[in-house]
């Protein structure tokens, strides 16, 4: 049986469960007796951050999380996993830090924090543009706050931001105990595949600085808005490549910021600041506090994964008549220059396929085919319906009754069925009342 350990921090003592919740290259995470906090134990003292820097972070963390008791994700400052206490060994070396527990809503079905990679990689089925914009806006606002406090995160990557869109969008910056001041620029640090500042790879700077955070933010915008792999941390023929997957349909302002952030990866001064990103996203997609659906629709369109098959119309595939009427397949549409990787090898098919439903032997009219067509034509039929009710109610009524009978045969999964039924009943009522008025006025006149 594992024994509970007592760890003394500078602000209090904590019971620490030896069982490891997660383990990284620097340390392991353990539960404490207080569900609000976890303990991060450094694997070796030399893996621990600088004590002076850590104390600065703890000071902010205690102000935000202990004194103000701000909920994670509520404000930019409470969206940072600040350390709130430090544990020192007998020799004065740092053995670990106390951190806020990551809120359960930010964990995915695999029991891990739902990282930024699940937001920016098409294969992870990220939310639609609205959710992505909201979360990327939060990311920019959080980094703007970190930046304004004169800090460098230094390892912004696909795992170090956790997010959720339910019940409302929350972005949360994690792995923050290694944050350092911007001045003097950091001399050492870590970096992750796909998120490394080309200046570090080229030896222009020894470690990630705050401009590297800005670079990672530009990468997140590029990948997250367009759902393109956007792996730009390797040279081609000895040269850094500018992003090649920015479509013409993207907002010119966003495209301009992407070019500024990524075209010349060695020119850090040109990179847009987090504040610039936040302003641009708000003005382009959320002006006056309301989502601009037209801009989001464009983003959804240009970030849709490439189709591998020619899209087929919605149809009743159980109806043999429908199959005969379907046009022969056209040549596959030329896909848009895709941000997505080309399709990989196809997985083998499932070993057994369910049997297709048997086609019904009845005619297409009996299958509600006429009503289905009427549904497909939409508004035109409504205008005709209203006119017919007033000008020829005696003709309209039988049609309404036929229509209702037909609708009973349309698939119950048809989303327009309910509104079509309501409309037809309304027409029927109008026609009946109008017919009654005509008949009564005829009788009275007589």
């Amino acid at each position: 049986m594992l024994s509970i350990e007592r760890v003394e921090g500078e602000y209090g003592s904590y019971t620490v469960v030896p069982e490891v919740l997660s383990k990284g290259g620097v340390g392991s995470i353990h539960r404490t007796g207080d569900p609000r906090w976890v303990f991060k134990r450094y694997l070796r003292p030399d893996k621990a951050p600088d004590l002076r820097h850590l104390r600065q972070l703890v000071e902010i963390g205690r102000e935000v999380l202990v004194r103000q008791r701000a909920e994670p994700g509520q404000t930019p400052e409470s969206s940072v996993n600040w350390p709130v206490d430090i544990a020192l060994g007998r020799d004065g070396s740092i053995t670990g830090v106390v951190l806020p527990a990551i809120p359960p809503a930010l964990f995915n079905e695999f029991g891990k924090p739902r990282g930024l990679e699940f937001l920016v990689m098409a294969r992870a089925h990220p939310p639609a543009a609205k959710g992505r914009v909201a979360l990327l806006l939060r990311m920019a606002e959080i980094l703007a706050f970190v930046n304004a406090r004169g800090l460098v995160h230094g390892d912004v990557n696909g795992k170090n931001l956790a997010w959720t869109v339910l019940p409302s969008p929350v972005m949360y910056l994690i792995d923050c105990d290694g944050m350092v001041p911007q001045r003097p620029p950091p001399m050492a640090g870590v970096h992750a595949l796909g998120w490394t500042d080309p200046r570090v790879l080229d030896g222009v700077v020894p470690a990630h600085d705050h401009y590297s955070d800005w670079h990672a933010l530009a990468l997140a915008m590029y990948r997250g808005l367009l759902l393109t792999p956007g792996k730009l941390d390797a040279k081609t023929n000895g040269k850094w490549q500018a992003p090649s997957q920015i479509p013409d349909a993207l907002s010119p302002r966003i495209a301009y910021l992407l070019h500024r952030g990524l075209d010349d990866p060695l020119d850090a001064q040109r990179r847009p600041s987090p504040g610039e990103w936040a302003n641009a996203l708000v003005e382009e997609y959320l002006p006056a506090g309301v989502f601009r659906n037209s801009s989001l629709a464009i983003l959804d369109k240009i970030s849709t994964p490439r189709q591998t098959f020619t899209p087929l119309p919605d149809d009743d595939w159980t109806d043999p008549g429908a199959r005969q009427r379907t046009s022969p397949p056209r040549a596959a549409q030329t896909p848009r220059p895709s941000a997505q990787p080309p399709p990989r090898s196809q997985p083998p098919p499932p070993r057994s396929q369910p049997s297709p439903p048997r086609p019904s032997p009845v005619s297409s009219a009996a299958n509600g085919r006429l009503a289905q067509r009427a549904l497909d034509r939409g508004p035109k039929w409504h205008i005709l319906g209203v006119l017919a009710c007033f000008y020829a109610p005696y003709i309209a009524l039988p049609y309404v009754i036929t229509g209702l009978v037909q609708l009973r045969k349309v698939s119950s999964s048809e989303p327009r069925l309910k509104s079509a039924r309501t409309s037809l009943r309304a027409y029927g009522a109008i026609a009946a009342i109008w017919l009654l008025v005509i008949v009564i006025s005829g009788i009275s006149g007589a």
Partner: protein
Amino acid sequence: METTAELYTIFPVFLLIDVSASMAGGPIEAVNAALPELKTEMLSNPTVGEIARVAVLTFSDEGRTVVPLCDLAGAQIPEIMVEGGTNFAAGFRELKKAIDSGMASLPKGTPVYRPVVFFMSDGEHMAREDWQAALGQLRDKSWKFAPEVVAFGFGDANREVIRRVATRFSFEAKNQDPVVQVREIMNALIGSIRTTSTSFRDPAQAQGLHLEAPAEYFTPLPPLQT
């Protein structure tokens, strides 16, 4: 715009698993329990899923490609069954075919690392034919897809043979229980795929292949001087 631009470099991995009769019971069950975990790794770690392409092959009297090289996140993983004898040559021949067809199936222009094979066996070659000729063809340096072969031996595996199969790295499982041995080998494979996929280095280059074979469970075997 070039569609292959800005893609992650693909890390092709081929698992070649001994399914001879001695694997019956616990060991094959451990393999069948671990393969879905490998698929879960691809789903729960999108960066690894984006980079690693995995094929699963078995060998006994014959070699079989159970899952061709693919993105395992979308693949159906069939149950692997125990078969008969142990024919390394059949396994290596099937492996060569699977590498050729798997690499050809990747979209043209996809950046790709040298394939890595994880070989695991609990026994010795029992067929009449010479297995070393088939291994020689697999390791023929003129073949453009000649893979890095990492070999794991357990149970009654012959240490020298395991060393011979590997290009650089070979390991012997320590635990006496074959079920634990298989489980630890599968954990080592999953960990190695995860770590290598998220590393900056080419797996074919020195220190580019990150093997997660903890000393607690494995004895590294010295490479043969070739």
